[in-house]
Protein backbone atom coordinates (compact mmCIF):
# COMPACT_ATOMS: atom_id res chain seq x y z
CA UNK A 1 0.00 0.00 0.00
CA UNK A 2 1.40 3.36 -1.02
CA UNK A 3 1.11 6.02 1.64
CA UNK A 4 -0.82 9.20 0.65
CA UNK A 5 2.36 11.24 1.01
CA UNK A 6 4.31 9.07 -1.42
CA UNK A 7 1.38 9.08 -3.82
CA UNK A 8 1.08 12.86 -3.88
CA UNK A 9 4.84 13.12 -4.25
CA UNK A 10 4.71 10.78 -7.26
CA UNK A 11 1.93 12.86 -8.82
CA UNK A 12 4.01 16.01 -8.31
CA UNK A 13 6.99 14.39 -10.00
CA UNK A 14 4.84 13.19 -12.91
CA UNK A 15 3.37 16.65 -13.43
CA UNK A 16 6.60 18.59 -13.26
CA UNK A 17 9.10 16.25 -14.90
CA UNK A 18 8.25 16.84 -18.61
CA UNK A 19 8.80 20.56 -18.08
CA UNK A 20 12.05 20.03 -16.18
CA UNK A 21 13.33 17.58 -18.81
CA UNK A 22 12.64 20.10 -21.58
CA UNK A 23 14.29 22.85 -19.55
CA UNK A 24 17.40 20.80 -18.80
CA UNK A 25 17.90 19.04 -22.12
CA UNK A 26 16.89 21.72 -24.59
CA UNK A 27 17.66 24.98 -22.81
CA UNK A 28 20.16 24.46 -19.99
CA UNK A 29 22.45 21.93 -21.68
CA UNK A 30 22.46 23.73 -25.07
CA UNK A 31 23.17 27.05 -23.34
CA UNK A 32 25.99 25.48 -21.31
CA UNK A 33 27.38 23.94 -24.48
CA UNK A 34 27.35 27.27 -26.31
CA UNK A 35 29.21 28.88 -23.40
CA UNK A 36 31.71 26.01 -23.57
CA UNK A 37 32.02 26.36 -27.35
CA UNK A 38 32.59 30.08 -27.14
CA UNK A 39 35.45 29.50 -24.70
CA UNK A 40 37.17 26.75 -26.68
CA UNK A 41 38.52 26.52 -30.19
CA UNK A 42 38.01 23.65 -32.56
CA UNK A 43 41.58 22.35 -32.36
CA UNK A 44 42.00 21.78 -28.60
CA UNK A 45 39.60 21.35 -25.69
CA UNK A 46 41.42 23.67 -23.27
CA UNK A 47 39.73 26.94 -22.39
CA UNK A 48 40.80 29.97 -24.33
CA UNK A 49 39.56 33.49 -25.01
CA UNK A 50 40.85 33.36 -28.56
CA UNK A 51 37.35 33.53 -30.10
CA UNK A 52 36.51 36.71 -28.22
CA UNK A 53 39.96 38.18 -28.94
CA UNK A 54 39.43 37.43 -32.62
CA UNK A 55 36.04 39.19 -32.53
CA UNK A 56 37.18 42.24 -30.57
CA UNK A 57 40.31 42.74 -32.65
CA UNK A 58 38.47 42.57 -35.96
CA UNK A 59 37.06 45.93 -37.13
CA UNK A 60 34.51 44.09 -39.26
CA UNK A 61 33.09 42.07 -36.35
CA UNK A 62 33.09 45.13 -34.11
CA UNK A 63 31.27 46.97 -36.86
CA UNK A 64 28.65 44.22 -37.05
CA UNK A 65 28.03 44.49 -33.29
CA UNK A 66 27.75 48.25 -33.57
CA UNK A 67 25.35 48.01 -36.53
CA UNK A 68 23.13 45.50 -34.74
CA UNK A 69 22.97 47.60 -31.57
CA UNK A 70 22.31 50.87 -33.39
CA UNK A 71 19.63 49.41 -35.67
CA UNK A 72 17.91 47.68 -32.75
CA UNK A 73 18.01 50.87 -30.65
CA UNK A 74 16.48 52.88 -33.49
CA UNK A 75 13.82 50.24 -34.20
CA UNK A 76 12.96 49.98 -30.51
CA UNK A 77 12.74 53.76 -30.06
CA UNK A 78 10.51 54.19 -33.11
CA UNK A 79 8.24 51.28 -32.22
CA UNK A 80 7.88 52.48 -28.61
CA UNK A 81 6.89 55.94 -29.85
CA UNK A 82 4.33 54.54 -32.31
CA UNK A 83 3.18 51.94 -29.78
CA UNK A 84 2.52 54.70 -27.23
CA UNK A 85 0.53 56.75 -29.76
CA UNK A 86 -1.48 53.65 -30.67
CA UNK A 87 -2.07 52.75 -27.03
CA UNK A 88 -3.31 56.29 -26.47
CA UNK A 89 -5.64 55.96 -29.46
CA UNK A 90 -6.93 52.68 -27.95
CA UNK A 91 -8.20 54.58 -24.89
CA UNK A 92 -10.37 56.70 -27.18
CA UNK A 93 -11.91 53.72 -28.98
CA UNK A 94 -14.77 51.44 -28.01
CA UNK A 95 -13.73 47.98 -26.69
CA UNK A 96 -15.08 46.21 -29.80
CA UNK A 97 -13.06 48.32 -32.25
CA UNK A 98 -10.05 47.99 -29.95
CA UNK A 99 -10.31 44.18 -30.03
CA UNK A 100 -10.47 44.12 -33.83
CA UNK A 101 -7.46 46.42 -34.16
CA UNK A 102 -5.56 44.32 -31.65
CA UNK A 103 -6.08 41.16 -33.64
CA UNK A 104 -4.83 42.98 -36.76
CA UNK A 105 -1.73 44.02 -34.78
CA UNK A 106 -1.21 40.42 -33.64
CA UNK A 107 -0.97 39.27 -37.26
CA UNK A 108 2.61 40.27 -38.14
CA UNK A 109 3.76 38.97 -34.75
CA UNK A 110 3.03 35.41 -35.77
CA UNK A 111 4.12 35.92 -39.38
CA UNK A 112 7.59 34.76 -40.23
CA UNK A 113 9.76 37.87 -40.48
CA UNK A 114 10.81 36.97 -43.99
CA UNK A 115 7.25 37.37 -45.30
CA UNK A 116 7.31 41.04 -44.26
CA UNK A 117 10.72 41.43 -45.87
CA UNK A 118 9.50 39.94 -49.16
CA UNK A 119 6.35 42.10 -49.14
CA UNK A 120 8.52 45.19 -48.79
CA UNK A 121 10.74 44.04 -51.67
CA UNK A 122 7.65 43.46 -53.84
CA UNK A 123 6.36 46.94 -52.92
CA UNK A 124 9.42 49.15 -52.64
CA UNK A 125 12.28 47.19 -54.24
CA UNK A 126 14.19 48.49 -57.27
CA UNK A 127 11.43 47.16 -59.55
CA UNK A 128 8.74 47.07 -56.87
CA UNK A 129 5.12 47.92 -57.60
CA UNK A 130 5.02 51.20 -55.69
CA UNK A 131 8.46 52.13 -57.04
CA UNK A 132 7.23 51.54 -60.59
CA UNK A 133 4.00 53.47 -60.07
CA UNK A 134 5.84 56.42 -58.52
CA UNK A 135 8.37 56.41 -61.35
CA UNK A 136 5.76 56.12 -64.10
CA UNK A 137 3.18 58.65 -62.90
CA UNK A 138 5.25 61.03 -60.78
CA UNK A 139 8.68 60.69 -62.35
CA UNK A 140 10.12 59.97 -58.93
CA UNK A 141 12.53 57.06 -58.57
CA UNK A 142 12.28 55.92 -54.94
CA UNK A 143 15.54 53.89 -54.70
CA UNK A 144 17.43 57.15 -55.28
CA UNK A 145 16.43 58.34 -51.81
CA UNK A 146 15.43 55.14 -50.00
CA UNK A 147 16.77 51.68 -50.71
CA UNK A 148 14.49 49.16 -49.05
CA UNK A 149 17.19 46.49 -49.09
CA UNK A 150 19.25 48.42 -46.57
CA UNK A 151 19.36 49.05 -42.83
CA UNK A 152 16.65 51.71 -43.22
CA UNK A 153 14.38 49.14 -44.90
CA UNK A 154 15.15 46.71 -42.10
CA UNK A 155 14.00 49.25 -39.50
CA UNK A 156 10.82 49.79 -41.55
CA UNK A 157 10.22 46.02 -41.73
CA UNK A 158 10.80 45.61 -37.99
CA UNK A 159 8.15 48.24 -37.23
CA UNK A 160 5.42 45.99 -38.65
CA UNK A 161 5.73 43.48 -35.84
CA UNK A 162 7.48 45.49 -33.09
CA UNK A 163 4.58 47.96 -32.96
CA UNK A 164 2.26 45.02 -32.25
CA UNK A 165 4.32 44.07 -29.20
CA UNK A 166 4.81 47.63 -27.88
CA UNK A 167 1.24 48.82 -28.43
CA UNK A 168 -0.31 45.79 -26.77
CA UNK A 169 2.06 46.06 -23.79
CA UNK A 170 1.44 49.80 -23.52
CA UNK A 171 -2.33 49.63 -23.97
CA UNK A 172 -2.53 47.84 -20.62
CA UNK A 173 -0.63 50.74 -19.07
CA UNK A 174 -2.68 53.46 -20.74
CA UNK A 175 -6.02 51.79 -20.00
CA UNK A 176 -5.16 51.42 -16.32
CA UNK A 177 -3.94 55.02 -16.08
CA UNK A 178 -6.19 56.64 -13.51
CA UNK A 179 -8.02 59.61 -15.10
CA UNK A 180 -8.69 61.12 -11.66
CA UNK A 181 -4.92 61.57 -11.20
CA UNK A 182 -4.85 63.90 -14.19
CA UNK A 183 -7.99 65.73 -13.07
CA UNK A 184 -6.57 66.14 -9.56
CA UNK A 185 -3.32 67.52 -10.93
CA UNK A 186 -5.17 69.95 -13.22
CA UNK A 187 -7.56 71.13 -10.54
CA UNK A 188 -4.65 71.75 -8.19
CA UNK A 189 -3.39 74.25 -10.73
CA UNK A 190 -0.76 72.28 -12.68
CA UNK A 191 -0.34 73.21 -16.34
CA UNK A 192 -0.68 70.75 -19.21
CA UNK A 193 3.05 70.15 -19.56
CA UNK A 194 3.52 69.96 -15.81
CA UNK A 195 0.78 67.32 -15.64
CA UNK A 196 2.32 65.32 -18.47
CA UNK A 197 5.88 65.40 -17.12
CA UNK A 198 5.21 65.23 -13.37
CA UNK A 199 2.10 63.01 -13.23
CA UNK A 200 1.53 60.99 -16.41
CA UNK A 201 5.11 60.16 -17.40
CA UNK A 202 6.20 58.75 -14.02
CA UNK A 203 3.18 56.43 -14.12
CA UNK A 204 3.73 55.15 -17.66
CA UNK A 205 7.57 55.20 -17.58
CA UNK A 206 7.97 51.53 -16.48
CA UNK A 207 5.62 50.49 -19.30
CA UNK A 208 7.53 52.56 -21.86
CA UNK A 209 10.83 51.05 -20.72
CA UNK A 210 9.40 47.51 -20.78
CA UNK A 211 8.09 48.00 -24.32
CA UNK A 212 11.42 49.49 -25.43
CA UNK A 213 13.44 46.59 -23.98
CA UNK A 214 11.11 44.00 -25.47
CA UNK A 215 11.36 45.58 -28.92
CA UNK A 216 15.15 45.88 -28.62
CA UNK A 217 15.59 42.21 -27.69
CA UNK A 218 13.39 41.04 -30.56
CA UNK A 219 15.18 43.30 -33.04
CA UNK A 220 18.71 42.32 -32.03
CA UNK A 221 18.19 38.55 -31.80
CA UNK A 222 16.22 37.85 -34.98
CA UNK A 223 17.78 37.20 -38.36
CA UNK A 224 15.03 35.99 -40.72
CA UNK A 225 13.92 39.49 -41.75
CA UNK A 226 17.51 40.69 -42.14
CA UNK A 227 18.56 37.66 -44.20
CA UNK A 228 15.63 38.07 -46.59
CA UNK A 229 15.88 41.85 -46.86
CA UNK A 230 19.56 42.77 -46.63
CA UNK A 231 21.05 39.31 -47.26
CA UNK A 232 24.79 38.85 -47.41
CA UNK A 233 25.27 42.57 -48.03
CA UNK A 234 24.51 43.51 -44.44
CA UNK A 235 26.97 43.43 -41.60
CA UNK A 236 24.90 42.42 -38.56
CA UNK A 237 25.91 40.01 -35.76
CA UNK A 238 23.18 37.51 -36.58
CA UNK A 239 24.05 37.54 -40.29
CA UNK A 240 27.71 36.97 -39.46
CA UNK A 241 26.70 34.00 -37.28
CA UNK A 242 24.72 32.53 -40.19
CA UNK A 243 27.69 33.03 -42.52
CA UNK A 244 29.89 31.12 -40.05
CA UNK A 245 27.43 28.21 -40.13
CA UNK A 246 27.24 27.74 -43.88
CA UNK A 247 28.48 24.58 -45.56
CA UNK A 248 31.61 26.32 -46.80
CA UNK A 249 32.76 27.77 -43.49
CA UNK A 250 31.43 25.86 -40.53
CA UNK A 251 32.88 27.42 -37.37
CA UNK A 252 30.53 26.74 -34.46
CA UNK A 253 33.06 27.98 -31.88
CA UNK A 254 33.43 31.45 -33.32
CA UNK A 255 29.67 31.54 -34.07
CA UNK A 256 28.89 30.68 -30.43
CA UNK A 257 31.22 33.43 -29.22
CA UNK A 258 29.44 35.92 -31.49
CA UNK A 259 26.04 34.72 -30.25
CA UNK A 260 27.30 35.13 -26.67
CA UNK A 261 27.77 38.82 -27.43
CA UNK A 262 24.05 39.09 -28.13
CA UNK A 263 23.20 37.03 -25.04
CA UNK A 264 25.37 39.27 -22.85
CA UNK A 265 23.23 42.21 -23.95
CA UNK A 266 19.82 40.51 -23.94
CA UNK A 267 19.98 38.52 -20.67
CA UNK A 268 20.42 41.51 -18.30
CA UNK A 269 17.82 43.45 -20.30
CA UNK A 270 15.37 40.54 -20.08
CA UNK A 271 15.81 40.39 -16.31
CA UNK A 272 14.99 44.11 -16.07
CA UNK A 273 12.05 43.52 -18.42
CA UNK A 274 10.71 40.75 -16.19
CA UNK A 275 10.92 43.10 -13.18
CA UNK A 276 9.11 45.84 -15.06
CA UNK A 277 6.45 43.45 -16.33
CA UNK A 278 5.25 42.92 -12.76
CA UNK A 279 4.31 46.61 -12.65
CA UNK A 280 2.70 46.50 -16.09
CA UNK A 281 -0.50 44.62 -16.82
CA UNK A 282 -0.87 42.80 -20.13
CA UNK A 283 1.59 42.20 -22.95
CA UNK A 284 1.79 39.51 -25.62
CA UNK A 285 4.43 37.41 -23.92
Amino acid sequence: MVSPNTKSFLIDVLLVSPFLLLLVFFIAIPFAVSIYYSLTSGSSSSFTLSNFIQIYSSPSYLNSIQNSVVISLESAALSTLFGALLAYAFTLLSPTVRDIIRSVLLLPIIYPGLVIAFSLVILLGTSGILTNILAKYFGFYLPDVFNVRSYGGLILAYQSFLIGFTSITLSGVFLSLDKSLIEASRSLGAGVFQTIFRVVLPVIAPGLLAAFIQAFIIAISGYGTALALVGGGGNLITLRIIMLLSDVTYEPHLASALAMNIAMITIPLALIYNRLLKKVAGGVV
Partner: protein
Amino acid sequence: MRLSDALYVFSKIVSYITLFAIISYIFLVSFIPVIGAFALKWEFSILPEVWTLNNIKFLLEDPFVLRSLYSSLLIASITSVVSVTIYLLVIMFLFLRERSRWMHTFVEVSVLIPLMLPAILIALAIYEVYRPTMLGGTYWILVFAHLTIVSPYVFRNLYSVARMIDMKTLIEAARSLGAGVFTATYRVILPNIYHGLIGAMLLAFAVSFGDFEMANLLAPWQYRTVTIAIFQYFFKNAWNASAIILLVIIVSVLTSFLVAYLSRKAIARYVEVVR
Protein backbone atom coordinates in the same frame (compact mmCIF):
# COMPACT_ATOMS: atom_id res chain seq x y z
CA MET B 1 -10.30 77.87 -26.85
CA ARG B 2 -7.87 77.23 -24.02
CA LEU B 3 -4.36 75.88 -24.64
CA SER B 4 -5.12 72.58 -22.87
CA ASP B 5 -8.19 71.95 -25.04
CA ALA B 6 -6.23 72.67 -28.20
CA LEU B 7 -3.48 70.29 -27.08
CA TYR B 8 -6.05 67.61 -26.29
CA VAL B 9 -7.62 67.87 -29.73
CA PHE B 10 -4.17 67.93 -31.34
CA SER B 11 -3.02 64.78 -29.49
CA LYS B 12 -6.25 63.05 -30.45
CA ILE B 13 -5.78 63.86 -34.13
CA VAL B 14 -2.13 62.79 -34.09
CA SER B 15 -2.95 59.46 -32.43
CA TYR B 16 -5.81 58.75 -34.87
CA ILE B 17 -3.58 59.52 -37.87
CA THR B 18 -0.86 57.26 -36.48
CA LEU B 19 -3.38 54.51 -35.88
CA PHE B 20 -4.68 54.78 -39.43
CA ALA B 21 -1.19 54.92 -40.98
CA ILE B 22 0.11 51.93 -39.02
CA ILE B 23 -2.93 49.76 -39.65
CA SER B 24 -2.74 50.54 -43.38
CA TYR B 25 0.98 49.74 -43.41
CA ILE B 26 0.40 46.40 -41.66
CA PHE B 27 -2.47 45.58 -44.02
CA LEU B 28 -0.35 46.48 -47.03
CA VAL B 29 2.68 44.36 -46.11
CA SER B 30 0.48 41.51 -44.86
CA PHE B 31 -1.74 41.21 -47.88
CA ILE B 32 0.50 42.07 -50.84
CA PRO B 33 1.46 38.37 -51.18
CA VAL B 34 -2.24 37.40 -51.06
CA ILE B 35 -2.83 39.37 -54.26
CA GLY B 36 0.57 38.39 -55.62
CA ALA B 37 -0.41 34.74 -55.36
CA PHE B 38 -2.89 35.35 -58.20
CA ALA B 39 -0.63 37.55 -60.33
CA LEU B 40 1.10 36.63 -63.56
CA LYS B 41 2.25 40.13 -64.42
CA TRP B 42 2.15 42.93 -61.89
CA GLU B 43 4.40 45.88 -62.48
CA PHE B 44 2.82 49.27 -62.97
CA SER B 45 -0.64 49.29 -61.42
CA ILE B 46 -2.42 49.05 -58.08
CA LEU B 47 -3.68 45.55 -58.94
CA PRO B 48 -2.01 42.91 -61.15
CA GLU B 49 -2.18 43.54 -64.91
CA VAL B 50 -2.60 39.82 -65.70
CA TRP B 51 -4.27 37.45 -63.28
CA THR B 52 -3.65 33.71 -63.13
CA LEU B 53 -4.26 30.58 -61.10
CA ASN B 54 -0.93 29.08 -62.17
CA ASN B 55 0.74 29.96 -58.87
CA ILE B 56 -1.88 27.99 -56.96
CA LYS B 57 -1.42 25.13 -59.43
CA PHE B 58 2.34 25.32 -58.83
CA LEU B 59 1.65 25.12 -55.10
CA LEU B 60 -0.43 21.97 -55.49
CA GLU B 61 1.91 20.27 -57.94
CA ASP B 62 5.47 21.09 -56.98
CA PRO B 63 6.78 18.05 -55.05
CA PHE B 64 9.20 20.09 -52.94
CA VAL B 65 6.48 22.54 -51.85
CA LEU B 66 4.04 19.72 -51.04
CA ARG B 67 6.72 17.90 -49.11
CA SER B 68 7.59 21.08 -47.16
CA LEU B 69 3.91 21.66 -46.41
CA TYR B 70 3.63 18.14 -45.03
CA SER B 71 6.76 18.64 -42.89
CA SER B 72 5.55 21.96 -41.50
CA LEU B 73 2.08 20.61 -40.67
CA LEU B 74 3.59 17.55 -39.00
CA ILE B 75 6.16 19.49 -36.98
CA ALA B 76 3.72 22.25 -35.97
CA SER B 77 1.02 19.77 -34.91
CA ILE B 78 3.38 17.74 -32.74
CA THR B 79 4.87 20.90 -31.26
CA SER B 80 1.50 22.38 -30.35
CA VAL B 81 0.11 19.21 -28.75
CA VAL B 82 3.30 18.38 -26.83
CA SER B 83 3.92 21.95 -25.63
CA VAL B 84 0.36 22.42 -24.41
CA THR B 85 0.54 19.07 -22.57
CA ILE B 86 3.85 19.94 -20.92
CA TYR B 87 2.69 23.37 -19.74
CA LEU B 88 -0.75 22.15 -18.68
CA LEU B 89 0.97 19.57 -16.47
CA VAL B 90 3.35 22.08 -14.91
CA ILE B 91 0.50 24.55 -14.30
CA MET B 92 -1.49 21.74 -12.67
CA PHE B 93 1.56 21.19 -10.50
CA LEU B 94 1.66 24.87 -9.51
CA PHE B 95 -2.03 24.97 -8.59
CA LEU B 96 -2.53 21.47 -7.18
CA ARG B 97 -1.83 22.73 -3.69
CA GLU B 98 -0.17 25.68 -2.03
CA ARG B 99 3.24 26.17 -3.67
CA SER B 100 5.85 28.56 -2.46
CA ARG B 101 6.24 31.84 -4.32
CA TRP B 102 9.67 30.87 -5.70
CA MET B 103 8.27 27.85 -7.56
CA HIS B 104 5.90 30.11 -9.48
CA THR B 105 8.72 32.59 -10.12
CA PHE B 106 11.08 29.81 -11.23
CA VAL B 107 8.65 28.53 -13.85
CA GLU B 108 7.65 32.05 -14.95
CA VAL B 109 11.27 33.11 -15.45
CA SER B 110 12.46 29.88 -17.06
CA VAL B 111 9.77 29.93 -19.76
CA LEU B 112 11.01 33.41 -20.66
CA ILE B 113 14.58 32.18 -21.29
CA PRO B 114 13.93 31.42 -24.98
CA LEU B 115 12.97 35.08 -25.39
CA MET B 116 16.21 36.25 -23.79
CA LEU B 117 18.47 34.09 -25.95
CA PRO B 118 18.67 34.51 -29.70
CA ALA B 119 16.94 31.61 -31.48
CA ILE B 120 20.09 31.08 -33.53
CA LEU B 121 22.12 30.43 -30.35
CA ILE B 122 19.70 27.77 -29.08
CA ALA B 123 19.41 26.25 -32.55
CA LEU B 124 23.18 26.09 -33.02
CA ALA B 125 23.70 24.48 -29.61
CA ILE B 126 20.88 21.94 -30.15
CA TYR B 127 22.40 21.12 -33.53
CA GLU B 128 25.84 20.56 -32.05
CA VAL B 129 24.61 18.53 -29.06
CA TYR B 130 21.95 16.35 -30.69
CA ARG B 131 23.17 15.83 -34.26
CA PRO B 132 25.38 12.88 -33.23
CA THR B 133 22.54 11.31 -31.19
CA MET B 134 19.53 9.44 -32.51
CA LEU B 135 17.65 12.77 -32.81
CA GLY B 136 20.01 13.95 -35.54
CA GLY B 137 18.54 13.75 -39.02
CA THR B 138 14.96 13.34 -37.76
CA TYR B 139 12.31 16.05 -37.53
CA TRP B 140 12.22 15.57 -33.76
CA ILE B 141 15.30 17.76 -33.37
CA LEU B 142 13.25 20.64 -34.83
CA VAL B 143 10.20 19.74 -32.72
CA PHE B 144 12.26 20.02 -29.54
CA ALA B 145 13.78 23.30 -30.70
CA HIS B 146 10.28 24.64 -31.40
CA LEU B 147 9.10 23.50 -27.97
CA THR B 148 11.53 26.03 -26.50
CA ILE B 149 10.43 29.01 -28.65
CA VAL B 150 6.68 28.45 -28.21
CA SER B 151 6.92 28.08 -24.42
CA PRO B 152 6.46 31.78 -23.48
CA TYR B 153 3.30 32.02 -25.60
CA VAL B 154 1.78 28.73 -24.39
CA PHE B 155 2.65 29.23 -20.74
CA ARG B 156 1.41 32.81 -20.49
CA ASN B 157 -1.89 31.91 -22.15
CA LEU B 158 -2.56 28.88 -19.96
CA TYR B 159 -1.26 30.51 -16.79
CA SER B 160 -3.49 33.57 -17.10
CA VAL B 161 -6.53 31.35 -17.73
CA ALA B 162 -5.60 29.14 -14.77
CA ARG B 163 -5.39 32.18 -12.51
CA MET B 164 -8.60 33.64 -13.92
CA ILE B 165 -10.71 30.55 -13.22
CA ASP B 166 -8.99 30.22 -9.82
CA MET B 167 -7.70 26.75 -10.60
CA LYS B 168 -6.48 26.17 -7.04
CA THR B 169 -9.95 26.54 -5.51
CA LEU B 170 -11.50 24.43 -8.27
CA ILE B 171 -9.04 21.58 -7.67
CA GLU B 172 -9.50 21.83 -3.91
CA ALA B 173 -13.28 21.75 -4.26
CA ALA B 174 -13.23 18.75 -6.60
CA ARG B 175 -10.81 16.84 -4.41
CA SER B 176 -12.64 17.57 -1.16
CA LEU B 177 -15.75 16.18 -2.85
CA GLY B 178 -13.83 12.94 -3.31
CA ALA B 179 -12.46 13.23 -6.85
CA GLY B 180 -8.92 11.99 -7.49
CA VAL B 181 -6.38 14.15 -9.28
CA PHE B 182 -7.15 12.58 -12.67
CA THR B 183 -10.93 12.82 -12.31
CA ALA B 184 -10.55 16.42 -11.14
CA THR B 185 -8.42 17.22 -14.18
CA TYR B 186 -10.65 15.50 -16.67
CA ARG B 187 -14.08 16.49 -15.31
CA VAL B 188 -13.40 19.89 -13.75
CA ILE B 189 -10.20 21.54 -14.98
CA LEU B 190 -10.23 20.67 -18.68
CA PRO B 191 -13.82 21.85 -19.35
CA ASN B 192 -13.02 25.12 -17.60
CA ILE B 193 -9.82 25.98 -19.41
CA TYR B 194 -10.95 24.52 -22.73
CA HIS B 195 -10.88 27.88 -24.57
CA GLY B 196 -7.50 28.82 -23.17
CA LEU B 197 -6.18 25.39 -24.12
CA ILE B 198 -7.27 25.68 -27.74
CA GLY B 199 -5.94 29.24 -27.92
CA ALA B 200 -2.54 28.16 -26.62
CA MET B 201 -2.44 25.23 -29.06
CA LEU B 202 -3.24 27.49 -32.01
CA LEU B 203 -0.57 30.01 -31.01
CA ALA B 204 2.01 27.24 -30.62
CA PHE B 205 0.98 25.85 -34.01
CA ALA B 206 1.30 29.23 -35.72
CA VAL B 207 4.64 30.08 -34.12
CA SER B 208 6.07 26.69 -35.09
CA PHE B 209 4.55 26.83 -38.60
CA GLY B 210 5.96 30.31 -39.20
CA ASP B 211 9.43 29.67 -37.81
CA PHE B 212 12.29 30.12 -40.25
CA GLU B 213 15.24 30.91 -38.02
CA MET B 214 15.48 27.53 -36.31
CA ALA B 215 14.24 25.44 -39.24
CA ASN B 216 16.88 26.98 -41.51
CA LEU B 217 19.61 25.43 -39.35
CA LEU B 218 17.94 22.36 -37.89
CA ALA B 219 15.50 20.95 -40.44
CA PRO B 220 16.92 17.78 -42.00
CA TRP B 221 17.08 17.71 -45.80
CA GLN B 222 13.90 15.69 -46.30
CA TYR B 223 11.96 17.76 -43.72
CA ARG B 224 12.61 21.29 -45.00
CA THR B 225 9.69 23.45 -43.90
CA VAL B 226 7.34 25.82 -45.72
CA THR B 227 9.31 28.91 -44.69
CA ILE B 228 12.48 27.40 -46.18
CA ALA B 229 10.53 26.77 -49.39
CA ILE B 230 9.44 30.43 -49.42
CA PHE B 231 13.03 31.54 -48.95
CA GLN B 232 14.30 29.31 -51.74
CA TYR B 233 11.62 30.22 -54.27
CA PHE B 234 11.31 33.95 -53.64
CA PHE B 235 14.25 35.09 -55.74
CA LYS B 236 13.33 32.65 -58.52
CA ASN B 237 9.70 33.65 -58.91
CA ALA B 238 8.13 36.10 -56.47
CA TRP B 239 4.55 35.22 -57.48
CA ASN B 240 5.10 31.48 -57.04
CA ALA B 241 6.59 32.20 -53.63
CA SER B 242 3.58 34.42 -52.88
CA ALA B 243 1.32 31.39 -53.29
CA ILE B 244 3.30 29.60 -50.57
CA ILE B 245 3.22 32.76 -48.43
CA LEU B 246 -0.58 32.78 -48.90
CA LEU B 247 -0.72 29.47 -47.03
CA VAL B 248 1.29 30.84 -44.11
CA ILE B 249 -0.91 33.95 -44.05
CA ILE B 250 -4.10 31.86 -43.92
CA VAL B 251 -2.73 29.94 -40.95
CA SER B 252 -1.67 33.17 -39.19
CA VAL B 253 -4.93 35.02 -39.87
CA LEU B 254 -7.11 32.13 -38.72
CA THR B 255 -4.96 31.72 -35.62
CA SER B 256 -4.89 35.35 -34.59
CA PHE B 257 -8.65 35.83 -35.00
CA LEU B 258 -9.49 32.50 -33.34
CA VAL B 259 -7.16 33.28 -30.43
CA ALA B 260 -8.79 36.70 -29.96
CA TYR B 261 -12.26 35.10 -30.21
CA LEU B 262 -11.40 32.30 -27.78
CA SER B 263 -9.89 34.63 -25.21
CA ARG B 264 -13.08 36.75 -25.32
CA LYS B 265 -15.09 33.52 -24.88
CA ALA B 266 -12.93 32.49 -21.94
CA ILE B 267 -13.49 35.87 -20.28
CA ALA B 268 -17.24 35.73 -21.01
CA ARG B 269 -17.41 32.29 -19.45
CA TYR B 270 -15.55 33.53 -16.41
CA VAL B 271 -17.93 36.47 -16.00
CA GLU B 272 -20.89 34.05 -16.27
CA VAL B 273 -19.46 31.78 -13.56
CA VAL B 274 -18.85 34.70 -11.22
CA ARG B 275 -22.45 35.89 -11.62
